[in-house]
């Protein structure tokens, strides 16, 4: 794991003539000086982690059990925040939407880049072009992608309905219809984010030894059989990793519903993170916001732990 022998032992330096002569008292002082120096390098990073990662994580749990108004001293309220949040009709809607969003993003947002990467790996021309173009939407700021699609989804002169009219298909309400809003947002998220998935999966495909395909072909395996018995098992680890990353990312979706639909119509696109934002900044209910955050945290923490477990074990294999 960590290489402890990365530095020469302290004694080796201490006896070296170029170094300042060790003061009386010797090694203890020397060690202390080393420690002070090491912590000098660590300090800035340590303070930032303490303030903006560790402390907020603890605080989320504490405030979840408090009535908290900035400026006045907090009051302990037991589990009142959780009960209140659980009885909010938006709570069910937010979790249902977030889970549906995640599931759809997994089905659509994972299957499409997966198939695309499979095809791209077979193409022998314009490789650089494909890689740049597929990643282009990722570099467009998410707010711009969201506003762009909001314009495409406009029921009047939006491009989406124009395309349907051009193909003589019935038009849709897209993000403005309660039934179609969520899937419309999944399409935006997929469009905007699939570049990363495609590139990572392409790299994984390139690491498959060609002999495996040759051997499979000699055994008479068809194209689909080769995908099933060579490609998928060989990239199983990357597939799993990308899926978990996708789940973790889509469970935290906020920008698309906030910008495109404002959570509507009829709460059809309110997500958990959006609800957290509403509790904090519209209702001024920081206790409720933190109670929701803790729930999200526990669920996402479990997925993240699984992800880290997998990447760690994958490293050991390599």
């Amino acid at each position, binding site marked *: 794991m960590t290489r*402890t*022998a990365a*530095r020469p032992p302290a004694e080796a330096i201490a006896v*070296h003539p170029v*170094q300042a002569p060790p003061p009386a008292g010797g090694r203890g002082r020397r060690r202390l000086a*080393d*420690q002070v120096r*090491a912590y000098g*390098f*660590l300090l*800035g*990073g340590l303070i930032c*982690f303490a*303030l*903006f990662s560790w402390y*907020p994580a603890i*605080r*989320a749990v504490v405030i979840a059990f408090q009535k908290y108004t*900035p400026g006045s001293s907090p009051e302990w309220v037991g589990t009142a925040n959780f009960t209140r949040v659980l009885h909010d009709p938006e709570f069910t809607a937010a979790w249902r939407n977030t889970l549906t969003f995640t599931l759809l993003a997994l089905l659509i947002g994972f299957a499409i880049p997966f198939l695309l990467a499979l095809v791209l*790996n*077979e*193409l022998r021309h314009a490789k650089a072009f494909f*890689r740049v173009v597929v*990643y*282009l*939407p990722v*570099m*467009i*700021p*998410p*707010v711009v992608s969201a506003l*762009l699609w909001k*314009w*495409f989804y406009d029921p009047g002169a939006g491009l989406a309905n*124009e395309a349907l*009219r*051009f193909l003589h298909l019935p038009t849709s309400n897209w993000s403005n219809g309660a039934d179609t809003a969520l899937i419309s947002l999944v399409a935006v998220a997929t469009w905007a984010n699939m570049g990363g998935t495609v*590139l*990572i*999966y392409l*790299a*994984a495909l390139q690491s498959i030894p*060609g002999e495996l*395909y040759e051997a499979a*072909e000699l055994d008479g395996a068809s*194209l689909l059989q*080769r995908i099933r018995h*060579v490609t998928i098992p060989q990239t199983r680890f990357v597939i799993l990793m990308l899926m978990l990353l996708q789940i*973790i990312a889509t469970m935290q979706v*906020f920008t698309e519903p*906030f*910008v495109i639909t404002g959570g509507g119509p009829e709460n059809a696109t309110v997500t958990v993170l959006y609800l*957290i*934002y509403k*509790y904090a900044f519209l209702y001024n209910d920081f206790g409720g916001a933190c109670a929701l*955050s803790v729930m999200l945290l526990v669920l*996402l923490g479990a997925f993240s732990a699984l992800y*880290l477990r997998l990447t*760690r074990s994958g*490293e050991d294999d390599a």
Partner: protein
Amino acid sequence: MSTRTLVSPATLARPRGRAVYWTVFTAVVVLFAIAFLFPVYWMVTGAMKSPDEVAKTPPTLVPEQWHLSGYGDAWDLMQLPQHLWNTVVQAAGAWLFQLVFCTAAAYALSRLKPAFGKVILGGILATLMVPAQALVVPKYLTVADLPLIHTSLLNDPLAIWLPAVANAFNLYLLKRFFDQLPRDVLEAAEIDGAGRLRTLWSIVLPMSRPVLGVVSIFALVAVWQDFLWPLMVFSDTGKQPISVALVQLSQNIQLTVLIAAMVIASIPMVALFLVFQRHIIAGISAGSTKG
């Protein structure tokens, strides 16, 4: 170069195989053009249409008249110079703070053997399991009233810069790179009497250019693309970065002007990508094999 993939070279060499290959190739080119390039084209040209033309059905594929005034109006009406400048300041500061503090901390954890180093590293890696967005509210409350010194960083770029340092992913990337640097070179520097800072500055950093490049790009892109956090901490319109300003102003502005502003907001990152595309794509692809 050509390694064996799913389809064998022999199949591709046959006339039928070649026909299928070129059909698929053309289909993918057309698909990519429609799915990824056309929306961008639509945005860039939409900003150059007149307000009437942009609302017309069926729409025009090419603007009847090319108006550049949309871009000029966006620049002036939406105070884009100011918001772009805010974004640049926020991104550049976050980048600098990350480079200085993350590099120093990673170096200490990798080479200086601080007491409780493993515990600290564990604590840092644990934050990878806590998705950042789930903690925005308590983080906001912390920034609004810093513990002990009771200062508010709201509407201050420090609210972006300091939390950016708490980036476990970048720190870990740096630490792992430092772990792999050849030991003898660093030892030689120490024997020559170079202090820790000197070793870091003139030996470690020059050897770490690739990883510093990756971390720099990640740091810049993250701040430029972020939305929820700046939305929370910058209530003052004059301090908002471009992403927040776009959404705030999108309600009451003419469509063509908004689209022009969207194009302008996208240019810096797309340009960065086009310039460094090989490094960025190589970095992402490498990320798959090495977590």
